């Protein structure tokens, strides 16, 4: 019996080792693909044609949907920044989702809002009753919809889809600032290939620590705390380069709800957002893939590597834990809802590669990581494994991951270069190490809890994220 246990632990540890090799090699491939794509993007930035898109009266118009719940500290600055975007024709639709703070009062005061009897048709399913609709005097393209809160971001977005009037809809978080040309950049794929492109994801970066003035990013800096700095590296590697890589492979599954542009008619055609899903962004894109594959319509879901949306990331480990539990819960829901696509050749690369990857490495990753770590420690403690194996395991699981994060930083340095200070670079390099020693294991634990909650169908792990507000020039430490 003891022999069997010993052999089982050794075999499992080798399996975990192999798992890490495969996982990190997939990441490496994605970062490498993204590095090539970024190098090309930098080269063609000078002739991107954004000026022509801006000047062309035939450029499709956009409705920017901004769900806002208790966003009083940032909402006015965010909306001002959105109204100042460089784009030929657009409207900003703020869905004030039953806030308990003075989010609406601040908007009403800042933009001199007047109640209007806007007709909102039930084009897609929404739950929360619309209370009133407001627009500013003077004709600024702003619409504020007040609704009853249903504790679902997807419900606010669904109301936004119904209230929107333009052919493209852009979903943006209220605690986000879009760069002036971000909308032009994210709309470019629609302009270049209007018949096939149905969704475009944009780059997200952490705004914590960065100075904002008049709705514009004036000084990008690394945040102050390590929890935030680690997220900067994580956003860079996974949400930026990872998605550029998937997009190049035509396998993009997630267009972040914090900054994504969709064809409105397609969103309506697939029935809108799933109100029961916590991962409404991935759910929507999965539905689009499923529907368009099943109806054999040519389409593309792409990631635009240049436009940037700066968004506030959780400033403390406690809030981050809640966010990541929710993400894990949401991913489990998405994979369950689309389980018949997994491994199904009818759905092409999405069915054969992307969804199996998300199942094996994103959803089940924390199980393998945490159980594997416990098994390796047990194996080493009981003498089943030697120190060399421990070293090999550390090399593959930690050093390889640190290498990937540093590689992501290198790609950033050779392409976008948003953080210009030497101190930012130093902080980034240290965060790349800390991310893999301590944070990653903690992160796996949070994700595991989200997965367990989803399997046991426990209530969704909701909770408000307290907003710190943007740093404006007078607040900058001298």
């Amino acid at each position, binding site marked *: 019996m003891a022999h069997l246990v010993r052999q089982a632990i050794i075999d499992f540890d080798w399996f975990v080792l192999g798992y890490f090799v495969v996982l990190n090699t997939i990441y490496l491939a994605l970062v490498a693909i993204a590095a090539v794509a970024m190098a*090309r993007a930098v*080269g*063609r930035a*000078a*002739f991107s*044609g954004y000026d*022509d*898109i801006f*000047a*062309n*009266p*035939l*450029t499709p118009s956009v409705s920017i949907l901004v769900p806002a719940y208790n966003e009083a500290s940032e909402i006015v600055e965010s909306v001002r920044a959105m109204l100042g975007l460089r784009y030929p024709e657009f409207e900003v639709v703020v869905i004030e989702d039953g806030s308990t703070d003075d989010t*609406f009062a601040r908007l*009403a005061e800042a933009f*001199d*809002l*007047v*109640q*209007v*009897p*806007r*007709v909102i*048709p039930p*084009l897609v399913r929404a739950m929360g009753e619309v209370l*009133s609709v*407001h*627009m*500013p*005097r*003077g*004709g600024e393209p702003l619409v504020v919809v007040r609704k009853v809160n249903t504790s679902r971001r997807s419900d606010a977005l669904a109301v936004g889809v119904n209230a929107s*009037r333009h052919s493209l809809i852009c979903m943006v978080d209220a605690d986000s600032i879009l760069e002036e040309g971000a909308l032009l950049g994210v709309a470019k794929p629609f*302009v*270049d*290939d*209007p*018949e096939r492109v149905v969704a475009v994801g944009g780059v997200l970066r952490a705004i914590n620590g960065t100075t904002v003035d008049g709705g514009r990013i004036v000084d990008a800096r690394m945040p102050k705390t390590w929890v935030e700095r680690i997220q900067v590296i994580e956003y860079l590697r996974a949400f930026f380069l990872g998605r550029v890589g998937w997009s190049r492979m035509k396998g993009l599954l997630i267009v972040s709800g914090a900054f994504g542009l969709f064809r409105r008619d397609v969103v309506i055609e697939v029935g809108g957002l799933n109100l029961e899903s916590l991962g409404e962004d991935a759910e929507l894109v999965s539905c689009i893939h499923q529907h368009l594959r099943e109806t054999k319509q040519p389409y593309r879901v792409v990631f635009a590597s240049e436009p940037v949306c700066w968004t506030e990331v959780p400033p403390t480990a406690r809030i981050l834990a809640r966010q990541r539990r929710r993400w894990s819960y949401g991913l489990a829901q998405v994979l369950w809802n689309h389980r018949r696509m997994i491994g199904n050749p009818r759905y092409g690369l999405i069915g054969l590669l992307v969804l199996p990857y998300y199942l094996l490495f994103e959803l089940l990753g924390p199980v393998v990581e945490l159980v594997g770590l416990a098994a390796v420690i047990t194996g080493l403690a009981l003498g089943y494994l030697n120190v*060399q194996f421990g*070293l*090999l395991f550390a*090399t593959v699981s930690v*050093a*390889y991951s*640190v*290498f990937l994060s*540093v*590689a992501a*930083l*290198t790609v950033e*340095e*050779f392409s976008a*270069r948003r953080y*210009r200070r*030497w101190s930012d*670079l130093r902080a980034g*390099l240290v965060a790349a190490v800390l991310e893999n020693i301590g944070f990653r294991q903690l992160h796996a634990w949070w994700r595991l809890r989200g997965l367990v909650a989803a399997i046991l169908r426990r209530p969704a792990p909701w909770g408000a994220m307290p907003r710190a507000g943007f740093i404006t020039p007078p607040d900058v430490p001298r």
Partner: protein
Amino acid sequence: MTYNVSISIALAVLAGILALLTIATAMRRAFVNAHDRRQGRLEAALRPRLLRLLATEDPDLDALAPQGKHAGRVLDALAAGLLPKLRGSDRAGVVELLERRGAVDRACRATMSRRAVLRARAAEQLGNIGLHRTQPDVARLLHDRHPEVRAAAARALGKQGDVESAPSLLRALDNGLVPANVVSMALMRLGDRSAPLLEMTLRESSVPSRVVCCELLGLFGAVGAVPAIAAIATTDPGYWSRLAAIRALGRIGSPKCLAPLLTCLHADRHAHRAEAARALGRLGATDAIAELVAALDDEHDVAFAAAAALTALGPEGMRTLETIGATPLRAGRYATEALIVHALEHERHAPSQFAAA
């Protein structure tokens, strides 16, 4: 090779790559920072000299000869960057400066570079300079193997403003070589001199070409093209081309557009009906009031467009909306919304029943 040695080698290789990446990142930062500082210094020195030179009556362009190859490149970039902002003799002065410095010939040679980035950049530069003699070099790039280069060439041809480029641009669009949006903007820059060609293309081209031709003829207000556009608006099998044709009829704004637009108000697709309602508003056709009122009972986007169109039809349209707005009908909600939004857009105070929140 033993197990221990293998692990040591793996660790050493990984540590080595990590160190190399870190050094490369730091060196890149140091290099770019130094380059930016040097560039900034050179630009600060050259820009005032360039502007002073352009401000003089008879500028001696040879006087502005910076020392060194790098400084020369900075001057060329500065001068080329000014081009889109300049007109008349100032622009001609900068073009002459670039020609004398050999920047135009270098750009023409770069259109044959092996690197796509350099070909596209050359096209962009030649477009900004706008010399007629470089048109064939740019037009050749419409058949480049790289889509970004083809798009840059199309934009450049538009900026050069040579109407002879129109057939090449339309062929590139028809063959799917350049996106419709890029071609449309380039043709728009060529102006209404290309209208006869667009009208001819309307009858014998692919759907994307018909879309672009309709949109442009609409923007140019090509009254002579109304019969051809009306035929597309009412009978074309293409969804997008019909939409573009309906929009074009609204933009042309001729009384001849009324009948086809009224037909389109009863089209099968609601997007076509909504576009027809918007076009009737743009047309300012009070004869269409009764039809637009009927459209207020249509699907949401048609009803919304019809109500907005009625606000554009002057006092008669507004009175009609006020009458309908006073009723408890579904159409009344669209009418009331349109009236309020119209008032807000014109910075008037909203009616008292919709007082400030």
